[in-house]
């Protein structure tokens, strides 16, 4: 088995117009910048993107939005130091936003990957974000029903990857990446380093290869925070 791809361009080449794409990361930490940039160059339109945020500056997710490729964003916190790309489009009515509490977003994605179509959570009960959602009482407390979230593709970032698709992550860059890997029909992982099969100790595998379709090596990946400070613009 060999899930390795030769380039980020090859890895994202078949993502079509209208696809739902989960993109890992929390802010810039764990964001697969090179895969997002490859997706910009590949050019599919009408995407629904799932990410915790809405990008920052003019690189990564913000650049994807700026290029007009995203019709809908599902996220918890679409504000940032420089949120102009999303904010301008949102205020002009050019992009739809589904706002989801962060823990609900993570659990909806986990549920999607785990085959659980809906679950109940205390989060958002009695608030505007629970409007229209079924509720139920368990042991004297009321909970809100939330549905699973699945995607056609997930673009994620790992640290080590082997040909089987087994992955590790670097520090807090893990965040949404492992749950998104589970919830997409096809998961494309960029990793900082390829290792041979057996090169990751079984005990330290975080995402088992069954959740991963494609692995592509991106040595020394770019960090959004560094690019922002350099005032980088993509493309």
């Amino acid at each position, binding site marked *: 088995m060999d899930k390795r791809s030769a380039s980020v361009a090859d890895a994202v080449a078949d993502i079509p117009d209208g696809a739902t794409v989960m993109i890992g990361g929390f802010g810039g930490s764990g964001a697969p910048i090179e895969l997002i940039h490859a997706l910009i160059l590949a050019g599919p339109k009408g995407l629904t993107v799932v990410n915790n945020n809405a990008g920052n500056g003019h690189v990564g997710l913000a650049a994807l939005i700026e290029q007009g490729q995203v019709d809908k964003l599902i996220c918890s916190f679409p504000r940032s130091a420089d949120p102009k790309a999303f904010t301008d489009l949102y205020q002009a009515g050019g992009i739809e936003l589904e706002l989801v509490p962060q823990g609900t977003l993570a659990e909806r994605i986990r549920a999607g990957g785990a085959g659980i179509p809906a679950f109940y959570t205390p*989060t958002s009960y009695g608030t505007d974000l629970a409007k229209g959602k079924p509720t139920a009482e368990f042991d004297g407390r009321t909970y809100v029903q939330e549905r699973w979230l699945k995607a056609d593709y997930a673009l994620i970032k790992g640290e080590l990857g082997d040909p089987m698709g087994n992955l590790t992550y670097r520090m807090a860059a893990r965040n949404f990446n492992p749950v998104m890997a589970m919830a997409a029909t096809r998961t494309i992982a960029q990793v900082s380093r390829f290792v041979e099969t057996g090169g990751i100790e079984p005990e330290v595998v975080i995402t088992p290869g069954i959740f991963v379709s494609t692995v592509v090596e991106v040595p020394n990946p770019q960090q959004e925070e560094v690019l922002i400070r350099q005032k980088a613009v993509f493309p």
Partner: protein
Amino acid sequence: MSINLENIQLNNAQIAWRAAQDIEDGAYVNLGIGFPEMVAQFQPEGREAIFHTENGVLGFGKAAEAGEEDWDLINAGKKAVTIKPGTAFFHHADSFAMVRGGHLDVAILGAFQVAQNGDLANWSTGRGGVPAVGGAMDLVHGARRVAVITDHVTKKGAPKLVDACTMPLTGVGCVTRVYTSLCVVDVVEGRFVLREKLAAISMDDLQSVTGAVLHVGDTVKDLTTPSL
């Protein structure tokens, strides 16, 4: 409501200091983004709190020095932090399992308004703009104690402790204690119960800048803090 609070009220550091005094040794604590992060600076000597951040770090250390940042090691406020012996990393679903699953001892959050029944409004003023909620609605459920630190009134002088919130709610009946720039109040059975107040403000004046009835507990202590 003509009292001048400027000269008597606690500053943010003093409010944070007071909140830190109630964090017991060994507590698992989540501090909200912004002002609540300041509480970490005032951990009492000899006590160790273990800090949780939503993006998947438990037991992190101090903020990273300028120039030493590792952007794979940030907190929920997107600020670079550091690791120390005992730090653990985990993914987002596990992180919020810690939150919702009742594994945190304390969450300390900011507020626009707190109602006497413990309702909290802290995510949206309801006046338009881009809505953003982050982890606020999750954090108010699950922690054993949900405390708020806040100025007692808004910059325009409006009470932040109110009968009922007029701004969009973050959570229903979730706040257990409020540390303000003038007093410490518990939420008990749908009422604000005053525990401590600054000696410099009279009961009547405190009530006049509060938007709900302050019930007086068995004893009301003086709220004292160091100069910070």
